[in-house]
């Protein structure tokens, strides 16, 4: 019976080998979905010319980005929007006047709606749950009513800087666009 046991053992081994020829790549193929898709790429964007920004009046600019979807790349899709606020007056450093620009993500930290500008009150408000923010991005209380501000934190400040274009010599505002988790009191970068 030794021979019979050996043949059973060989059959089992060969069957396992054959199954794994397809099985192992199969599992690996299914696990592709766990792979981080595409590069998030460079999210630093020149969003507006300085001369186009009025002092004290926020301007919304879209952040365009190529969006990768498996085998397709969608060029120039709106990744998100940013509110630019040029504060008045320009800061003085010696004789030089430096424009003060701040950039806020237009995504509400509460539940992610698009924050809009209320021109009458000159402040930001989220249309979904009436979160209110000043031009400095901090939460403000509504003048009327007892409703609490639903936003857990101030608007999300984004890194921005002024850059001079080498060819046209124009001054541009450059923003590093990031997304943050909603509903948290702390600003946490989205994974």
């Amino acid at each position, binding site marked *: 019976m030794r021979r019979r046991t050996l*043949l*059973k053992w060989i059959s089992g081994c*060969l069957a396992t080998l*054959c199954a794994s020829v*397809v099985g192992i*790549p199969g599992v690996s193929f299914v696990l592709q979905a766990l*792979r981080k898709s595409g590069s998030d790429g460079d999210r630093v964007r020149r969003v507006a010319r300085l001369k186009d920004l009025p002092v004290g009046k926020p301007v919304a600019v879209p952040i365009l980005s190529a969006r990768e979807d*498996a*085998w*397709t790349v969608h060029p120039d899709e709106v990744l998100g929007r940013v509110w630019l606020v040029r504060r008045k007056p320009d800061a003085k450093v010696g004789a030089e006047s430096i424009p003060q620009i701040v950039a806020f993500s237009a995504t509400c930290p509460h539940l992610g709606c698009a924050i809009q500008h209320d021109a009458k009150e000159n402040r930001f408000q989220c249309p979904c749950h009436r979160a209110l923010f000043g031009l400095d991005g901090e939460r403000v209380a509504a003048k009327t009513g007892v409703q609490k501000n639903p936003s857990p934190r101030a608007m999300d400040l984004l890194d921005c800087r002024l850059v001079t274009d080498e060819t046209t010599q124009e001054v541009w505002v450059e923003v590093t666009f990031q997304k943050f988790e909603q509903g948290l009191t702390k600003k946490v970068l989205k994974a």
Partner: protein
Amino acid sequence: MQSFLNWLDARTDYRQLLAPIRMRVLPAGPRWAYSTASCLLWLFIVQLVTGLLLMLSYSPSTTTAWASVHFIEQTAAGHFLRGVHHFTSHALIILCGVHVVRVLLARAFQAPRELLWITGLLMFPLMLVWAISGNPLSGGLSGVSQIEVEGHIIGSTPWVGPLIQRILIGGEEAGHLTLTHLYFLHVGLLPLLVIGLLLFHIGQVIRHGLSVAELGGPQDDVSRWSAPNLTHLIAAHTSPLPPPRLKYYPYQTVRNMTVVTVVLGIISAIAGMHGAPLDAPADPTLPHTPRPEWYFRSLFELRRYFVGDWEFVATIIIPGAVLGFFVLFPMLNRKCSPRVSLIHRALVLLVGVGAWIGLTGMSYLRDWNDAEYLASSAETEALSARARDLADRSLLPPEGAITLLRDDPKTQGPLLFARHCASCHSHADASGQGMVASEPSAPNLHGFGTAAWISGKLDPQRIVSEHYFGKTKFTEGDMVSKIKELFDGIEEAEAAKMRDDLKLVAQALSAEAALPRAAAADHDAQAPIVTGRELLSGRLACTDCHKFRDQGELGSAPDLTAYGSREWLLGMIGNPQHERFYSGDRNDRMPAFAEDTEHPERNLLSPRELNLLVDWLRGDWYEPPTTSIPAQRRNATLAGN
């Protein structure tokens, strides 16, 4: 383990269910030949598993099919699985053939196994249809052309043909619905049909056991083996009867598994090394000569002998008659003595296999001797390699893979040139490779804008050759006489100096073209280029007729500023009679291809086509780096996992 199996058996009786196979005794002992059935079953399961896995990433539509298949090819696992799926389909068809021949030789179709034989035979054409319904799913050139031809063949069948054709193609011509319909066939209907037949087939095998002929028993005794009796079989095994009666498991199983391992090993090796083919994305504007798969070559050859209204004889009647004959063969063979039956079967086999090999061989021989077909097939392969290179470069636009070659100057340039330019201009190198006009009446544009090409135009002999102005009215013009004048009555030493000067001019003019392929050379030759420019507007006085930068006037000869640049060529081809080029009656016969800038649709060339043509003339197209990108990406993915 044993206790778990006992537990399981107590609840499922699995041992008894498997007993007809496991405990079956093979009186003639285990044989290698028996393993075809087991091997077919294994490969069938491999197809089901790999097919299901590929469905994870495949998307059937004309915009996404090719792109999603290329996406699958980007990972090592996807590349391998698709390769296994592809080559296993071929292996299944070969093994099906071997299996049928083996059953025929063993006379295993005799009563009571007629249904086993018939279901097996019905599965064979279904497997073929299943295999070819998978080919076009990649959205590749050859697969889609194949299904179009197959649609026409079905459509030429009298009465129901056109109806079935429309249902198969999903409309009048190949499109989204063709792919979804084929997908339905490939992953829905055909698997259900084949699995249904297969279960019946296997049920019959268990019911009837091995055939009497295979068992070597008496021919007439069919009942003895018809119902396997477990206790009887076990008793047969345990009783010490000579010769030793071996059970199916493991004595036959180990042979089966060895064959399966070898076959699967060969398939995996081919799949790993070559992978499944991926043609250029289907595009009716690309040149392509469709050919069927090898297993349909015999019918393809047969079609040659039945043309016109008689085509359905080759496509329907003959294959149908052959299948019918085989289905009825057990009845025809029933009454024969073993000897007569053997002669019958040998005859059927010889005629059948002989005809198949003969027709298939003739079809391939015809193609191998057909230079036109070979050229077309090489062109398809080149287009396919090009499409893959372009797709490896970046992800695809939302419009899909068809844009890869449509927006590629290297692909479209020769097609546009052949259609619009090649009746006058050649585009061939010194050895005559490329497009040669049958009656060239204008300059050969191969290498246009390079220093070498311009040097020829500045040579008193070559300018009047047919490669330049020889066949145009400019051969009598000022340019030719001016070049000749430069060399008139001068010593050989001075002529050599003149040739060197003209070489510098050619270099300077080539720098104006700013050809991407010459960028490095132009950058390294700043000094000669500056000297060339000085000669051009200075001592050689080209600017007497030509405008060059701020020297000279327009109107008497083409502008040399940015000569051969993209924008210059767009203007020249668009309208050669513009004052920058050959205004008035100085133009020879060159048509204006894009004269109407207000209404581009009225022009001979659309803006897109004009751009592609100009980019191609200037050699301005993407070339992949010499190291293979897919290999790199694959390795990166492996490392990522």
